[in-house]
């Protein structure tokens, strides 16, 4: 119980301290919606994930088709 409380309290104080660093700059003020970098990074990651999923599905179908072809030939 004591360890849980200590871990939670330490983490919370760190999170609070992080908030206290913000001053002036939109980055540090947390106005990420007005910074283009955030949008572009999200779109990049969404595209990368979509590409990874399509590649995985193609590889999976390819391997299954190859196995089926190998069994038929035998």
């Amino acid at each position, binding site marked *: *119980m004591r360890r*849980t*409380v200590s871990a*939670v*309290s330490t*983490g*919370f104080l760190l*999170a*609070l301290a*992080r*908030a206290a660093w*913000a001053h002036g700059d939109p*980055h*540090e*003020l*947390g*106005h*990420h*919606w007005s*910074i283009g*970098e*955030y*949008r572009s*990074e*999200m*779109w*990049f*990651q*969404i595209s*990368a*994930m*979509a590409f*990874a*999923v399509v590649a995985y599905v193609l590889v999976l179908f390819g391997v299954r088709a190859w196995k089926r072809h190998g069994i038929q030939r035998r």
Partner: protein
Amino acid sequence: MRAIWTIAKMSLVENSRKQVFHVLCLLMLAVIAGSTLLSIFTEGVKLKILKDLCMTCILFAGAMLAIALGATGVPNDVETRTLYPIIARPIARWQYVVGKFLGTCLTVAMGLGALSAVFGALIYYYQARFDWFLPTAALFALLEATVIAAVATALSTIATPAVAAALSFMIYLCGTIKVGYFGGMLDRASSGLVRTVGTTVYHLLPNLECFNLKAALVHDDAIPLSYLVLVAFYGVCYAAFALGLGAVVFKGREV
């Protein structure tokens, strides 16, 4: 779907009995309640600090609950062998993983719902009106927790609870300062290898900062709807991707 929902319900009941859930919620409630004692400031600043502190509590509680519950769900079932009768049923491994993840999300939603309700009541008391942006901010805090829960659940399919929790916490910390700080650090990196590895890690980390609408809530700023829609879509995609990876790994795991 029924199998997933059954496992999610079981996971919710199990999680809501855990010590970490009660401790976190009670601690955050105490901080939120304690924040009302900021009488040294004038009313306008007091309200801003109240909103900032309470929103920080909600964001923090959501992340910590997601890590603590997500990282331990699957490994605990494997260790206590409660997993065996479940996967001996006609359900696929991915249904089990998704069910555990959903249970974690429901538990986090329960905790954040309680904290947000108290927060909302406090704002109504001090502003004499309800802040309609609060549900949106709380919802995006929940979405952030969902992404973290998906990462923690995925890691828990291959690692011990301690390792999964530690890695999830590191990913959470790095994800909250990703674009603001890591981006700048990478630009200044001199070595090609450091930049390549750093860029790869940079693009793999979740962009958690964009779920944090605290500044808009505190300063009554407007956020474009298109941005909110993009962030929500991104959150769903990232969570689904992380969970998918975890499901693929768990499918091949011998138990």
